[in-house]
């Protein structure tokens, strides 16, 4: 299965480096990191809330769409739910593709879609 989705409680830890999938010439990993301020206000972290079953389904659906559209090899999507402190990782996307161009394009497109169509909300704490 080319697309894997996981919603995780709290901050995302270090990822175990999986072997590269055959055919992969480029693996691109994106870590979204909680910054210590929101709209100029100091915060201690972000609290994420999700409509879980739909969020999982949407992440999977968007992933599948982009895998097909860009001819990707694999997509691994992980997002935090609950509290994530400053300087920790709350979102991770790993894309494998034959070449870098399609991987970078798909990464950008995925994050646009995430911020538009995936029922996850954050609240500064």
């Amino acid at each position: 299965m080319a697309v894997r989705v996981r919603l995780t409680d709290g901050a995302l830890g270090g990822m175990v480096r999986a072997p590269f999938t055959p055919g992969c010439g480029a693996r691109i990993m994106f870590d979204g990191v909680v910054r210590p301020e929101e709209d100029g206000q100091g915060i201690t972290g972000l609290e994420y809330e999700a409509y879980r079953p739909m969020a999982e389904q949407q992440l999977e659906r968007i992933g599948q769409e982009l895998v097909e559209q860009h001819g990707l090899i694999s997509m691994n999507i992980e997002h935090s739910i609950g509290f994530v402190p400053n300087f920790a990782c709350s979102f991770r996307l790993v894309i494998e593709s034959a070449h870098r161009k399609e991987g970078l394009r798909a990464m950008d497109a995925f994050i646009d879609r995430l911020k538009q169509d995936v029922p996850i909300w954050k609240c500064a704490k």
Partner: protein
Amino acid sequence: MPGCLWGRTGESSVEMPSYTILLFGPASAAIGQDRVTIESPSQCTCDELKGQVVLQFPALETHVQVGRLAVDRGFANADALIDPAAEIALITMVSGG
């Protein structure tokens, strides 16, 4: 003519559909509830149901304006007729990532 029921006199009147709408994030915080129930005079389209939510829960107005309804975990078209038995959710402006 909504509300006007022709024929079959003597039967019990048709039940008004009742919609339960899940709320999350800012919308849920706005009224301190994780869902609302809407009684509607008839089966609604997506846009009609949004109108009913605003009528019955004015505090949700801005959330409904920027939001979309999801039906069975997929976004619904504005003119789609919504089954009251479906899982319905108000998806306001999301902010993941």
